[in-house]
């Protein structure tokens, strides 16, 4: 079987096909992260400051997204949109579900970043005459950002990897495109290794960057 590593029928064409798949993976990731982050920041701020009767229901709803397999969420969303008659492509459904999924995690990251700012620091800001809004924009957001960014990077990479599940509802992304080629040329180990390598190359450098940032900032505090 190893001989296939050397005399393969895998062509440049196939590599191109997989790279297109990787492009879809990145596009999905991009939209999901954009939507997930916007929603996550909004929800996160609400969860950090709102009274419990807003906070608790919101937390419970978001918790649902973290307690059900993404695969099932995708299937459900895909069939639900048909039932209610929305005409979205599987790609759109994938983006929306991933964005909601990401927002559920992002909310908690934002919230804990927010709560990581010591009350005493905020009190100091207020006692200098800064208004509540200035306190938020000048003190809380910047500090929370440093706390949250490393986890946010981790989350983004997680979502990038989770896009693999979107093939189930019919989107040909990186993993699915490699399966297509496996079907044709029957060299699963070789083709899958290439897919794995592409995932790794998309994820590892950013993961390293995140780790570096985290360390740098921790030293600064």
């Amino acid at each position, binding site marked *: 079987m190893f001989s296939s590593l050397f005399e393969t029928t895998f062509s440049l064409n196939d590599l191109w096909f997989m790279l297109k798949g990787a492009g879809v993976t990145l596009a999905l990731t991009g939209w999901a992260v954009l939507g997930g982050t916007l929603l996550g920041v909004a929800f996160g701020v609400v969860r950090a400051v709102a009274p419990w009767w807003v906070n608790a229901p919101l937390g419970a709803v978001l918790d649902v997204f973290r*307690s059900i397999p993404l695969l099932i969420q995708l299937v459900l969303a895909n069939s639900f949109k048909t039932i209610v008659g929305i005409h979205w492509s599987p790609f759109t459904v994938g983006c929306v579900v991933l964005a909601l999924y990401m927002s559920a995690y992002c909310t908690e990251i934002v919230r804990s970043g927010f709560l990581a700012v010591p009350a005493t620091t905020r009190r100091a800001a207020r006692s200098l005459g800064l208004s509540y809004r200035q306190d938020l924009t000048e003190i809380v957001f910047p500090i929370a950002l440093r706390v949250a960014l490393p986890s946010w990077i981790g989350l983004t990479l997680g979502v990038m990897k989770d896009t*693999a599940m979107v093939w189930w509802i019919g989107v040909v992304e990186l993993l699915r495109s490699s399966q297509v080629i496996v079907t044709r040329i029957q060299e699963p180990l070789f083709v*899958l290794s290439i897919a794995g390598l592409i995932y790794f190359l998309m*994820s*590892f450098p950013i993961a390293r960057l995140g780790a570096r940032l985290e360390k740098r900032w921790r030293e600064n505090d």
Partner: protein
Amino acid sequence: MNYTFHWLPAFRALPEMLAGALVTLEIAVLSMLLGVFFAVLLAVASSSSYRSLRALAATWVELARNTPSLFQIYMAYFGLGSLGIHLDSFVALLAGITFNNAGYLAETFRGGLRAVPQTQVRAARSLGMGQVQAFRLIVLPQMFRIVFYPLTNQMVWAILMTSLGVIVGLNNDLTGVTQELNVRSFRTFEYFALAAVIYYLLAKLVTISARLMAWRLFRY
């Protein structure tokens, strides 16, 4: 909306699905036990003085963390399969999730170890405890508390990941059963909605029992 829900057949399938949930739970628990075992080995290996051991541990951890778990499971089945290593679907899924768990938990454990202050070891050693005693009696219990929460999170993750077994032909776990029911009748929404509820309850079961356990275990 011109869709008529057929809930009755879904509810009739409930016993079958609950049996699937049991398999799901079984895989998740096994993968956690094995995952913790390998994670400890990895954490030890990554601080070992042998370069090859450190490299092996680093490779495992980075691969587990930087490729999709779906990919890992597919690899465990068809990737290993093409090397002539035939894992049963159940075993392949278990292997894939264990691989993933171990990679994440190894990092958790390393962080947990670092989080126990060195002064604790110093205090223990100055009472005459040996290195192993200090680790077992002082460091380990404190580390356990630190990693407990990440550990339960990983357990929930493991449950959610079992849903991917269906791509390697596993058809007796919750998702497998649900998909079998689905492809026979194509009442997709009804069956999967029911599955979602069961997964949710499983996840809650884990978090709530973890909370109770933490409350019992960590009185300090």
